């Protein structure tokens, strides 16, 4: 046994050395990995708003698709306007209403806005009303720029989180709800629609009693 002691001591020292080397190696690799992940893990989702999160109050479906309000009463609201008095949606009962959610940074929105403005003038005798709800809190100057570019001379309203929530979260833009004279949503579009589709939906709400 006595003769084995030096051998055992050498063996233990060897094991300790290997353990120390292993630990050192592990720590170094963890540091390298952390640096690598910091460098490589830097992609970000392009569509942060598409998936609803509890803190943004989104009522959209889990897939990020807008809620389907077709044949449901349009949720009522009162919103202040950039270019006139506040508007209460239910006060427009009896009129067909186009409710369009937009933002100054949304290029497709600005494609649709002139169509809505033209339709409002074309069907004013039938009472067609258009409401534009801004989702990005633009300054009055920015709104004026958009109006000048698109001819959107209809009420442009300050959007709120509650109203967006009531209409399914409005996770992307544009989104438009076509509301009949009875206050029910007859059609809705998410994303840029064609002018033909817009006109077809307008005809639907003009035909309501």
């Amino acid at each position: 046994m006595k003769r084995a002691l030096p051998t055992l001591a050498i063996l233990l020292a060897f094991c300790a050395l290997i353990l120390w080397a292993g630990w050192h190696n592990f720590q170094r690799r963890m540091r390298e990995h952390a640096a690598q992940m910091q460098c490589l893990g830097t992609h970000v989702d392009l569509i942060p708003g598409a998936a609803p999160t509890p803190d943004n109050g989104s009522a959209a479906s889990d897939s990020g698709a807008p809620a389907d309000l077709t044949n449901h009463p349009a949720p009522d609201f009162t919103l202040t306007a950039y270019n006139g008095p506040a508007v209460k949606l239910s006060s427009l009962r009896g009129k067909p209403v186009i409710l369009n959610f937009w933002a100054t940074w949304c290029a497709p929105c600005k494609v649709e806005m002139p169509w809505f403005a033209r339709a409002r003038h074309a069907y004013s005798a039938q009472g067609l009303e258009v409401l534009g709800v801004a989702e990005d809190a633009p300054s009055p100057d920015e709104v004026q720029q958009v109006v000048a570019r698109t001819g959107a001379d209809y009420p442009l309203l300050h959007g709120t989180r509650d109203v967006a929530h009531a209409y399914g979260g409005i996770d992307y833009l544009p989104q438009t709800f076509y509301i009949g004279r009875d206050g029910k949503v007859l059609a809705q579009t998410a994303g840029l629609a064609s002018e033909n589709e817009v006109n077809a939906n307008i005809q639907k709400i003009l035909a309501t009693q």
Partner: protein
Amino acid sequence: MTRIAAIALLLSAALAAPAQITHAAHEKALPGVHYLPEPIAITHGAAQSITLAFRVDDGFHINSHKPLDDTLIPTTLTLTPPAGVKLGDIHYASGASFTLEGSTTPLNVYSGEFLIHVPIRAARQGTLSLPATLRYQACDRRQCFPISTASFTVLVTVK
């Protein structure tokens, strides 16, 4: 005795082996903008330019740095240099012209890969870690998504 020594050696060898790090599969539910990091090396004391590469997922675009419309959100890179590092004016890639269906007004956008060049001068050797943010606003052909600001880190080796 021999058995104990063998066990000790096996245990030590196992601990000394390179750490195996498993990367959990990251499934991206939604399209994104990606920073494409590549090794960047510069020489200390010299004015140089580093190039950062980004990629926008297929079917999407983001506004370029000069989107042709004052109300659109330009893509903007912000870098925070540590002490001893000077950055010059950032040079953004030119975007491509893009016109939405139903519109006659062209936009200027980035799609696919695009590059941003940053003039840099570092006083000392070592590894630089530059905190960065990319602010952008993304759309596809029919819809637009909220403005996003993404944070990441640019690593630069200064020789």
